[in-house]
């Protein structure tokens, strides 16, 4: 008998079909990966197992857990099961913990809900559990608050809450998507350990095929609410019977056909840039401390060149980006674009800023939802001294939309009418319209599904073939940086540790940090 058996699970929310005849099983000590693109029904499948479906959901089929049927289980009985026999870890460690309670209280609560023990015993148990997930008491006392921890540490707390009662089944919904590669590797290793230790079954939901390949015993590929292929991981990767599996795999490995960069001619020059933040004092009469986010960073970016900037969160990538864009003053050093400083005399230089544009990770958040696309993408034009008007402006908007693979008719629509990939195209159109020389991509494809990401990367290659564009491509995703850049900078703790031709750095990393980063990144081609 399987630990978890899902049979012909179908589900509608307000008369919309979400899941259709989904079937799979999880055995004890087995890691099953549920994979597919966003909207394929992975998360909702997990929530039906947890009994946490939204109101207005109609379910049919069978979900058997440990011989017990879950779909018709009354709520009080489900409350006894949740967190006790079935537990769940979520995607966003930054927001998954209650900000006003200590981590000790939150772990202890998970124990006291299910077990009649004293407060003191629960806290002792919580301390042990936190220790087990790699948060030893000496360093991370129970009265630590979530905001005092990093993303990876918070995810460990979430895992501690989930495993505190030694559940038989753990469901992890994109547990490492929001984490850095090295943190991801340690969290995945922890989960694997726990599976063996506790004889747990693990259902992991991830869109990252590389993680699946390295980590899972069984794989279930979902598309549009249906299971299209399932089986032991190696068999599925070997055979890839379903076209969707093949296309997912191809998109994950997508290589961009990048045109050769033109002859080096300096464009952006960053020289000995240092940026220091003041931190408020922590004690009553303590002094305010300083935090050096970027230290003595120097690099050149040539016209038409594509440069990648990689590093973990907190390494100073965003601070450096802000400085390059002229949004912040620096403490020392100089940043010039085409020989002119981007920031001088305590103010950003608009004439210089005009020549660069930026595309962010979350396109939806960077658009005003009440403006039409035409107005949204034409915004950078107002930076110029005499912006085009009337027919010229309309023609420019239409042309730019076509350049990014949209139609001129899209100019009259609102942003909510577009999918995530289309929104990112609109963001690129907005960056292109003022004909900049440099576009900075700040994690611009990180939130996209693999197939959409492949299309956007192709678009970027296509654009720099047609226009004299240089890219600064900031990402924590090494495979993307590898495919879309000529040169790469590796940043750690505010400093650039290594830079060189992308292929050279990836094949023969010199700095130990680069090596560690590359080792930690899961790879699609070779399982461990």
């Amino acid at each position, binding site marked *: 008998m399987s630990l978890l058996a899902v049979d012909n699970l179908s589900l509608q929310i307000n008369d919309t079909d979400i899941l259709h005849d989904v079937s799979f099983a999880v055995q004890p000590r087995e890691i099953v990966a549920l994979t597919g693109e966003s909207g394929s029904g992975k998360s909702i499948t997990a929530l039906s197992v947890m009994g946490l479906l939204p109101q207005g959901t109609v379910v049919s089929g069978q979900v058997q857990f440990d011989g017990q049927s879950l779909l018709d289980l009354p709520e009080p009985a489900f409350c006894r099961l*949740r967190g006790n026999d079935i*537990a769940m870890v*979520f995607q966003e460690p930054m927001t998954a913990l209650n900000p006003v309670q200590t981590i000790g209280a939150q772990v202890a609560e998970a124990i006291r809900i299910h077990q009649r023990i004293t407060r003191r015993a629960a806290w002792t148990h919580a301390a042990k559990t936190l220790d087990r997930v790699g948060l030893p008491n000496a360093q991370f006392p129970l009265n630590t608050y979530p905001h005092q921890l990093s993303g990876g540490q918070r995810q460990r707390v979430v895992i501690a*809450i989930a495993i505190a009662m030694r559940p038989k089944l753990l469901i992890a919904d994109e547990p490492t998507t929001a984490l850095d590669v090295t943190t991801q590797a340690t969290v995945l290793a922890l989960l694997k350990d726990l599976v063996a230790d506790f004889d747990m079954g693990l259902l992991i939901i991830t869109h990252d095929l590389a993680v699946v390949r390295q980590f899972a015993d069984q794989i279930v590929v979902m598309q549009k609410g249906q299971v299209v292929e399932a089986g032991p991981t190696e068999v599925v990767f070997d055979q890839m019977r379903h076209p969707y599996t093949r296309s997912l795999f191809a998109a994950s490995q997508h290589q961009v056909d990048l045109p050769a960069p033109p002859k080096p001619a300096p464009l952006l020059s960053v020289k000995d840039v240092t940026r220091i933040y003041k931190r*408020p004092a922590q004690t009553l009469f303590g002094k305010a401390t300083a935090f050096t986010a970027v230290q003595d960073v120097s690099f050149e970016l040539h016209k038409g060149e594509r440069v990648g900037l990689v590093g973990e969160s907190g390494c100073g990538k965003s601070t450096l980006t802000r400085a390059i864009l002229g949004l912040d003053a620096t403490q020392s050093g100089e940043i010039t674009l085409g020989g002119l400083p981007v920031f001088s005399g305590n103010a950003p230089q608009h004439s210089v800023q005009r020549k660069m544009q930026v595309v962010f990770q979350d396109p939806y958040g960077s658009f005003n939802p009440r403006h039409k696309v035409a107005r949204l993408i034409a915004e950078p034009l107002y930076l110029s001294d005499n912006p085009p008007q009337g027919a010229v402006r309309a023609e420019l908007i239409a042309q730019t939309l076509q350049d990014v693979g949209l139609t001129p008719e899209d100019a009259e629509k609102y942003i909510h009418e577009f999918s995530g990939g289309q929104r990112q195209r609109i963001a690129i159109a907005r960056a292109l319209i003022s004909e900049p020389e440099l576009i900075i991509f700040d994690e611009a494809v990180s939130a996209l599904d693999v197939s959409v990401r492949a299309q956007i990367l192709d678009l970027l290659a296509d654009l720099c073939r047609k226009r004299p564009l240089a890219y600064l491509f900031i990402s924590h995703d090494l495979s993307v940086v590898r495919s879309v850049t000529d040169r790469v900078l590796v940043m750690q703790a505010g400093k650039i540790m290594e830079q060189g031709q992308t292929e050279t750095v990836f094949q023969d990393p010199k700095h130990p940090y680069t090596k560690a980063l590359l080792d930690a990144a899961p790879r699609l081609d070779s399982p461990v």
Partner: protein
Amino acid sequence: MIRYSLHRALSLILSLLVASVVIFTVIEVIPGDTAAFMLGVNARPDTIAALRAELGLDQGGFARYLTWVTGMLQGDFGQSYTYRTPVAELIADRIWVSLPLALYALFLAVVIAFPAGLYAASRRGRLGDISVMGATQIGVAIPNFWFAMLMVLVFAIHLRWVSAGGFPGWDQGLGAGIKALTLPAISLALPQAAILTRVLRSSLLDMLGEDFMRTARAKGLSRRQSLWRHALRNALIPVLTIIGLQFAFLIAGGIVIEQVFFLPGLGRLIFQAISARDLIVVESVVMLLVFLIIVVNFIIDIAYAAIDPRLRARA
């Protein structure tokens, strides 16, 4: 936490200082001579001059400001021009009506709003929620003086449970004082409770969408338990802000209700003092109100930090 509190305390003192300068200046620039007003239109110029000297009005503005502020710090608010008694006594008599009334009303508002808000949030979109929301709509819409008169009609005139107005004084016993303040407190509290209920409900509903609420449910907490243990404390921040504003309104804005119930409160005192151009009383009462409101906001700031550990870290 200590650092944060000191920060807030410093800002409290600065606010008070600025407020005192503003109040003094505004009262100064109001046209009309107090001495001339007090003596009537037929007064002789030298009589007016003598009175001005007696009242200290012939001194410079800065000197009078200093006298006023240092006096207040020692509990001496000066002499009322019209009552010819120390302002401190006038205030002391009345603040023991106004302050308990405001606190009583605030207490009632909180006691009504918390259960109602929690109940409505936990039954979102269902009949219970709709009824509570409908009731708060009415509560916000009804003018409190009209509601006050209605209550006088029912409870004082018809049922004869309480008297229609007036205040016997606290020396008649705590029970008698509370009894006299009950109808006014209810009339003040009802619209405030309605507002507070709505704020608490929407703040709680915002919290229900948060990721940590999902974590709480995944631990095995029921919907209601997760609302109480995880949503409530996080939802308190906006509620506290409103409570702070409401206290300010209740202490200074009770004037209409004080009139309806013939209560000798600060609102009536300031109203009479303005009519009689008794500027020293106006100045002092306004300063006192500002002081109370700033202190309450200080307490609210400290409460924020007690609720949210992230605020303690900043400062």
